[in-house]
Structures are given as C-alpha cells and as structure tokens.
C-alpha cells in the first residue's frame, strides 16, 4: 500500500532531476515535452493520492504511517524517513497535486516561447515535491527538507524575470527572510531531538512528550515559540510580514500556486500538525493569536489601500492567513483546515485572473448597467475620521514595516559588519575594494 504513495511523492522530484540534468548536459527538451510530462506527473500523483488514501477518510480508519528507517544517523542523532498520510495531510496533498496541475496547464500558454519555460517547469516540479514532503511528513526532519525546497524554489521564481532589477532585488530580500525563519525551524528540530529524543510529529503531540516538556523546565515553550516563528516566516505573518508583497514580482502562475495557495499556507499547516504541542504552551498560544490577529488587521488595512492588483491580493492573503493562525490558536482543527483549502482555491483563481482584472471589472460594470456600488467601506466606517487618516498613512507606507526593519535591524547589522574590518589589518578601506587597481593577480604578465 505504501509504494503508490511514495511514487506519487517522488515523481515530481525525479522529473525535476531529469529535466535539470538533461539541461546541464546541453540537451534541451521541447516545450511540449516539458509541459506534458509536468502535467502528466501532477495528474498521476493526484490519481495515486486519491486511490490510495480514500480508505483513510472512512470513520475510525487508521492513518497511513510509512517508516523507511533512518535517512542518516550518527551517534545519538537519527534522522528518520517517515511519512504520515492522515485526514489532515490528505487535503494538502490533494490540493497541491490539483493546483499544480492547474497552474501547469495555465502556464503552458502564459509562458509560451519564454526563454525561462524549462526553468519555470523544473522549479514548479521541485516545489511540488517539496510541498508533498511537507504535507506527508511524519517527522520534523522530513518536513524541514520539503520546507527548504519550497523556500528556494519560491525565491528563484521571484527572480524569474531576471532582466529587471526589482525582481532580483526582491528575490535576494525574500531569501534572507526565509533563511532567518528556517533557523527557527532547524532550532526546533534540534531541540526536539535533544530534549525529547524524537522529532516525529505524532510523538511530539503525545502525552508523554507533553508531560516531559511541561515539567517546569519550559522546554515546550521554546519549541512551540520556534515553530510559531518558523511558521510566521513561511506564511509572512508577524515579524516576517514584509516579504509577501515583494514576492509578487514572479510570474503570475507561480504567484498563484505559491502565494495564493500552497506555500504561504504551509506555515499554518505546520502549526496544525503540532497543534497539541502549541496548545500545551499558554504563552505560545497567546503569541500565536496575537500575531495572527495583528497580521489579519494589518493585512486588510494594506489590502484596502493598495493600488496594484497582485500586491493587494497578497495583503488580502496575509489577512486570511492571520485569521487561520487565530483559529489554530483557538484550538480548532477542521475550521482552519477548511479555511486553508477554500482560501487556496479562491485565491489561486483570483491570482490567475489578476492580469485580466480590468477587463473583468469592465465586464461586470457593463453587466450591472454601469452602476457598481463601492464595497468594503464597512470596516473604515467603524473608526473616527482622525484615526482613519492615521491608519491610511500607515497603510500606504506598507505598515511602516520596512522602515522599522531597516532602522532597527539591517542598519545595525551592516554597521557591526563594517566595524569588524578593524580585526583585519589588510582589509580595504572601503568594503569591497580590492587592494590594488587590478582585478586579479593572474592578469599580471
């Protein structure tokens, strides 16, 4: 029973490896072959997930746990390869397969004759593999692998239109956000191994681990805190609020699958997977609700004042994910899951239609007889006029997020980094300048 699931998960990864290797060796497949193989793999994965996991949806059916032993081990450290397909992971697997196939179909025309056609589809397959791993992970070890693969593909697709400076700059910035957030996930994995001797998701939610973590040492609070911060990083919530609008520089289909559907929801999905552990820590739960509610409010504020279609959609997405975080903090399981699935599907459709938004608006406007009443003013009406203006100023400045980040984090780090030049007797006076007026010594005769 386990083989088809494994095949379904591995297929996009293998396709990515095959396409990449062929290209590196100078063999470039045609557009039709790339598109058909990608769509075929998505369809096959979806069919395999459906066939193999329908029995799991029956009441009282046991989840499917697949253990493949240690991926690698040394000393006390064991990095297990375990997958878990249960009613929580199943919707994500289905959703990922379905939306990937949809986006692949859409992209065939959208990127027709684009020089990055192969690059896009290769990265889409790698992303799908990463998303499957996160969704089906039975342990934080496996989840981390998928998590990081999703992150790197996301960044490379933000910089897809490499001839413009903005996507490149934003890709580097988002990469920085992701790497810092990943440190929290890695820290939680390390601490889980160190303190509880396991990083299996079912074990971390078990009574034994929870009682061990609540023995007065505060261990569980630390792990819960790190997991929340990691999830915030992936979902662009709380301290990592600023990256999602930057990610809109990528092609529309990738924005749809990454930032409308799968990638941004993986943070919430991670929190759902470890929900018992989070709920066992009061401070962590409170933090989760506060971060979620704050981001939801800020997201809706910025969404309303944004004049760019995709950016506006990204803020709206953040607003919904903030609400999902609150729902998870309140201890609900199925409501956030349904919210994730519903929101992913709607937002994917919105992103894919974003390039035709003006056309759609004119169409609806004409159909309504030229009398479209403005909507969305009910929230603003709740605030006094002075506060409305103040909030609007904050909103058009992006929530002053970048200002705060630059002033209190980036500038101090850069200043410290520059000042460390005093430890190098030979360091150039200006950072980055070489010692002489030549590029490399090998250029000398």
């Amino acid at each position, binding site marked *: 029973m386990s083989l088809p699931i494994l095949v379904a998960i591995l297929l996009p990864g293998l396709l990515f490896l095959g396409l990449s290797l062929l290209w590196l060796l100078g063999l470039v497949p045609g557009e039709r072959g790339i598109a058909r193989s990608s769509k075929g793999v998505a369809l096959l994965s979806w069919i395999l997930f459906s066939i193999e996991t329908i029995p799991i949806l029956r009441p009282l059916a046991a989840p499917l746990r697949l253990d493949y032993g240690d991926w690698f081990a040394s000393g006390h450290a064991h990095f297990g390869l375990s997958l878990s397909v249960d009613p929580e992971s199943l919707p994500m697997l289905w959703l990922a397969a379905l939306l990937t196939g949809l986006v692949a179909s859409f992209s065939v025309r959208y990127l027709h004759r684009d020089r990055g056609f192969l690059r896009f589809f290769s990265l889409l397959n790698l992303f799908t593999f990463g998303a499957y791993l996160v969704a089906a992970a039975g342990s934080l070890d496996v989840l981390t692998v998928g998590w990081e693969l999703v992150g790197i593909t996301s960044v490379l697709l933000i910089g897809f239109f490499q001839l413009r400076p903005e996507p490149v700059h934003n890709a580097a910035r988002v990469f920085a956000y992701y790497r810092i957030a990943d440190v929290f996930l890695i820290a939680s994995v390390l601490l889980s191994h160190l303190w509880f001797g396991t990083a299996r998701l079912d074990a971390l939610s078990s009574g034994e681990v929870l009682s061990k973590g609540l023995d007065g040492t505060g261990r569980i609070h630390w792990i819960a805190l790190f997991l929340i911060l990691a999830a915030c990083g992936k979902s662009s919530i709380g301290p990592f609020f600023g990256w999602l609008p930057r990610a809109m520089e990528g092609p529309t289909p990738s924005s749809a699958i990454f930032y409308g559907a799968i990638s941004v929801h993986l943070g919430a999905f991670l929190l759902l997977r470890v929900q018992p552990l989070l709920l066992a820590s009061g401070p962590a739960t409170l933090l989760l609700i506060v971060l979620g509610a704050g981001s939801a409010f800020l997201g809706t504020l910025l969404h309303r004042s944004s004049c760019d279609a995709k950016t506006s959609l990204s803020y709206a997405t953040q607003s919904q994910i903030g609400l999902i975080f609150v729902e998870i903090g309140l201890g609900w399981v199925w409501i956030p899951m349904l919210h994730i699935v519903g929101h992913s599907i709607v937002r994917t459709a919105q992103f894919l239609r974003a390039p035709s938004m003006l056309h759609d608006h004119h169409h609806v406007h004409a159909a309504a007889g030229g009398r479209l009443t403005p909507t969305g003013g009910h929230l603003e009406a709740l605030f006094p006029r002075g506060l409305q203006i103040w909030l609007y100023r904050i909103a058009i400045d992006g929530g002053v997020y970048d200002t705060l980040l630059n002033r209190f984090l980036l500038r101090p780090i850069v200043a410290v980094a520059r000042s460390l030049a005093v430890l190098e007797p030979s360091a150039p006076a200006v950072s980055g300048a070489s010692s002489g007026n030549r590029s490399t010594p*090998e250029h000398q005769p």
Partner: protein
Amino acid sequence: MSASSFPYLSLAILAMLAGGIMSWRAQIRRSHAVAIVLTTTLLVGLGFWTAVGSGNPWQADSRCRRLGIDSGTGWMMLVLCLMDLLIVLVAPEQDLKRGIVGGALILSAGNLIAYAAHDLTTMWSGWIVGAMPFLFGALRRNQAVRSALVPAVGSVLVFGMALAAQAAGARPLTVSTLILVAIALRKGILPFHGWVVRAFAESPLVWIMLLFNGHLGGLLLLRHEIARHGLEQGLVEIASGIVILSAIVCSLRAVVEANPRRLLGYLFIGQSGLVVGGVLLANTEGITGALVHWLVVVIASSGLFVLLRILERRIAGPEWWRQPQGLGVSAPRLATFFLLFSLTLAGLPGTLGYCSQELLFTGAAEHSIPLGWTLALTSALNAISVFRLFTHLFLGVPANRALPLPDLLPRERWPLVVSLVLLIVTGLFPARVMRLPEAPVHELVTPAQMPGGGH
C-alpha cells in the same frame, strides 16, 4: 595488517612531485596534467582499496611507520585527487602556463604527504612541500603570492616550532598552544582571517584552492592528541570559542563584501571553521558532521572557485565585479552550477551539505544549545551572502559588453556535472558516506560519548 598501500602511495606522491617539478618552468599541456593527476588518483584509489581490504583503520603501515594510506583518511586523499582532477580539467587555458600547474601539482603532493603521514614530523614535511610554491614564488619577486605567505609559510614555521618544543620536552600546554596557532594560521581563524581573505583576493586562485582546500589544519587537529584525549580541556574550550567567533565574524563580514574572491574567502573560512569546530566538539555527531562537511567543502568550494576563475578569465577589465553583470542570460549553466555549489555549502536539502550541517548543528547543540543556534544562524548568514553574490553576478540587466559571455564548454561542463551529481547522490543516500569517518570518530570520541556508552 597489510603494508601493501605503501608502494601505491609512494608512486602517487612521486608522480605528483615529478610532474610539478618538470612543469615548474615549462608550459604544460592539459592532457599531460590530466594524465599525471589521473595516474595519481588511480594509485591512491588502489592504495585505499588495499587499506580497506586489509582492515587498516587509522593505524600506521607496518612497512613504513611514517607514511601509509589508512581507511580513516584514505577516502579524503581520494577526494583531494578528484578535486585536483576537476581543477586541471576545468581550469582556463591561461592557467596552464608554467608555474601555475607546476605549483599546483607540488601543492597536491604536499597535501598527499600530510594526509598519509602517521606522525607529526612527516605531516610537517607535507606542509613544507605545500608551502614551497609560495616560497619560490616570493623569491622570484612574484607580488601575487606574497599575501599568501603568512598562512602558507607562517603556519609551517609555527608547526615546526611546536615540534621543536615537543622534542625539547616543553610543557604540553605550550606544544598544544603552538599547534592551535598553526591551525589558526592555516585555516584563517581569528585573528588571522584577514591574511587568508587577502590571499584569496590576490594570489593565484588555483594555488589558493589547493592550499586551503587541503584542510591541513583540520587534519592536524584530527591527528594531534588535543582532539584525541581532550588534553587541556580549558584550552580546547577557548579554541572552540575562537573558532565559532571566527565563523560569526566571517559570516558578518561577508554580508558587506562585494569582491567575489574576498566574499568566497570569508565563506570558505566560515565553512572550514565548521569543520574545525566540529572536530573540537569531540562528540560523535560533531566529528562525523565535520568530516562529512569536509567532503562537501572540498567539492563545492572547488567547484565555486573554478567557476569564479572561469568568469575572471572571460570578463576582462579591472574590478569587473563592481557592476551587476547579469551573466545568467548568456551563461545560464555557469549560473546554475554557481548557485547549486553555493547552496550546497549553505546546506540545501537534497545535497550532502544538508546532512553534514544537520549533524554539525546537532553535535553543537548537544555540547551547548546556544552553540548549535549560533552555528545555524551563521550558516543562514553565509547563505544570504552567497545568494546576494549570485544575484549580483548572474541576475539583473546584462552588463554592456561587445560580445556575450560564452557559457560553459563541454570540457568544463562534464566534470562539474559529475561533482554535482556526487554531492546530490550522496545527499540523497548519505548513510554510506556517514560511515566513512567511522575510524577517526572511533578514535577521537571517548567511550562515554559513544551511543550506549554512558548516556
């Protein structure tokens, strides 16, 4: 115990040395250089095979007590030979001029001697051989090699002082301190990182790759009793603290560095600091992680530096790196290799770099949780810096030049694909690679720290 690895080893070293001396003053054809390195690789491979076959872990050869291939370091020698092969296959044609390849072969011979040494005096002779190209270069008033004199020759001198002190019956603390200073000089550990970065910026890149990518500092630490017996625990604690501090300083300096050579120099010091730090942790996870990371650093950083050298030769002009280059359009494969090697060093899942770093972080966290956290943060900063370099060089608007930059040639492409596939395959199936450092781990980890041995 078998002694049959010695003939292979001696022939391999002689082949390298002879090739190096003969090509020191004369132009060498690429095919000849490849033949020499290939012969050496085969000989080392045969020696390693016999050592493994005769169960010779981490022990002296009975025929020659001073020199021999054992299963503990034999695989490292093999990887170093493969790195040499990668360099001579991919290096630009202009780098095959006299002196450069000759020096590279002598450096490689020095590395082989050091790795095959079973006592510190023999290892020192390997260090001396490796420093010779820099010494002779400086004597010939070659300005380019001067900046590498401090790490290359200075470390040899301090290592020699340590041996002299040991022979004179000095206190173990003095000897250990001198050994650690030699390691710091060689690896660019604080406060010597400035010299190493300068050497990266100014010296011939092929020599620098072989000098620092030999990781002789880490090897010395492995072989010396500091790591083996935890001698002067306080000193080891101080040393590990400095190593970690170096990694942090270098990762921060890399954040504001624009010169690709200097940036990769900082990155390299940070990564090799992880190797030394892992050995100093003296737990199974740390040492295994360090030695597997050694493999990753050797292959990935060789690939990175070779690619950088190709770029330097193809883009003429002083300080070409000041402007964004946008090379990804005309040289997409070069860009992809650069990205993948960079991300391997940064711990991309699916490559061996991920596995080695996970083990290193685990080993560090087992030692002290803030230490594990710091290493993870350092690794993240390194990743950010190297990705910034990638975007600066390969993405963005292409620089205005008369002819587009040519992409990788098939001669360059195939060895790089093999290196990358090696990193990916071992990253997907790392269990066998994790067993390679079993012998040194068994030797260095105290029984109480072994699994089931006291915990």
